[in-house]
C-alpha cells in the first residue's frame, strides 16, 4: 500500500514537470507588453458600456469568437501554433512584412496578421503567405 502511494506521488511529480505543449503559445500570454496593457489583457470581466438591452447580441458574438479564441478550422500546426489562434501581443523579435499590400508579422517562423477585434488589436496566426 505504501509503495503504491509512493509510486503515485512520484508519477504526479514527474507529470507536473513534463513540459506539456511547451512550444504552444498560450492564447493570451503577453510578451513585452506594457504593464497597463498586461492588466487590460488579463481582464476577463469588463464593465458594460451601455444600459441598453444587449443580451441577444452578446450571445451571438460569442458564437463567432468563442471563449477559446480559436477563429476557425481544425488545428493545423504552423511552427507549433495552431492557425487561427489569436493573441493580444506578439512574442519578441518579429519582422514586419508587407506582402501584396497586407501587413504580416513573422516571429520565429510563425506568421501573424493583425486585425481589430473592436478597439483591440489582436494577432491571428495564419499560414505563411505566398
Amino acid at each position, binding site marked *: 500500500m505504501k509503495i503504491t502511494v509512493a509510486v503515485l506521488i512520484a508519477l504526479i511529480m514527474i507529470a507536473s514537470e513534463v513540459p506539456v505543449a511547451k512550444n504552444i503559445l498560450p492564447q493570451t500570454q503577453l510578451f513585452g507588453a506594457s504593464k497597463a496593457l498586461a492588466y487590460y489583457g488579463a481582464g476577463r470581466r469588463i464593465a458594460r458600456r451601455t444600459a*441598453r438591452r444587449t443580451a441577444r*447580441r452578446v450571445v451571438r458574438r460569442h458564437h463567432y469568437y468563442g471563449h477559446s479564441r480559436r477563429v476557425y478550422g481544425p488545428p493545423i500546426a504552423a511552427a507549433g501554433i495552431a492557425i487561427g489562434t489569436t493573441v493580444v501581443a506578439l512574442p519578441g523579435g518579429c519582422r514586419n512584412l508587407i506582402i501584396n499590400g497586407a501587413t504580416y508579422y513573422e516571429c520565429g517562423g510563425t506568421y501573424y496578421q493583425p486585425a481589430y477585434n473592436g478597439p483591440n488589436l489582436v494577432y491571428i496566426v495564419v499560414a505563411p503567405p505566398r
Partner: protein
Amino acid sequence: MYRFKGLSSAFPACFKFFSLVVLLFFAFSPVCTYAQDGAIDPQAEKVLKAMCRYIEGLSSFEIKGQTAYDVITDSGQKITYFNQIEILLKRPDRLYVHRVGMVRDQDIYYDGKSLTLFDRKRNLYASTKVPENIDKMLDYAKDVLNLAAPGSDLLYSDIFKGLTEDTISGSYIGKNRINGILCHHIAFRNSEVDFQMWIQDGENPVPRKFIITSKWMTGAPQYMLTIFDLTSKKLDNKVFHFSPPKDAHKVAFLTPEYIERLRKSLKEQGK
C-alpha cells in the same frame, strides 16, 4: 403503549419543521413582490425625459468628457481606466469619436457609408462598410465589430426608449452638485444593469455624470461617463471624413466575413 408515545412525540417535531417552512416562505415572498411592484417615479421619468428630448433636439453637437471603466482581473482585482473623449455628432448619419487613454489613442470616423478606426499609437487603421444612419451603425458596430462608442446610449435618435426598454424601477434620489453644477440625481434598475445619472438642473438638462453598473458580473464593474461640455455646434462634413496619413497601414476588422475568408483560404491550402 410504548409505540403510541413515540408517535405522538414525533408530531410536534413535524409541525415545528412545517412552521419553519411556512415562515421562510413568508420571509422571502415580499422580496419578490417588491421587485415586481417597482415602478418609475414620475419625477425621475420627467428629469430623464427632459434630458433625452434635449439631446435628441440638437441636430449637431460636440461632447467633451471623460470615461472611466472597470476591468476585473482574473485574480479579482479591480483596475479602473480613464479615457479623455471627444464626440462630434451630426444627425442623421455623421459621427466622430476620439478617445485617448493609457491603453488606446483612437479615432472613429463615420461618414454615412463606412466606419474607420484609426489607431494613432500604432499608426494603423481599419475600415468597413456600415449601415446608413447612426442608430443602425451603432447597433452594427456593437453586434458585428464588437466596437462601442463612448456613452453610445446618448447618441441614438431615441435615447429614452433605449434606456428604459427593460426598466424594473426608476427613482429620484435628490439634488447634488457635479463639478459645481447643480444636478438631479436619478437611479434606474434595468434587467441587466443599473444606471445612475446626474442631470443638470435648469434650461439645459445636460447629463453631467452617467454610471452604468454591470450588477450581475462578479465585482460589479462600472462604466462612468463625465461630460464637461455638451454644446450645440454647426459641423462641416469634412470632420467626419478620414484620409489616412501616408505612412499608415490598413488592417482588417475581425468580422464574420473576415473569419469566413480565412477559413476558405485554409481549405484551399489544405488541397
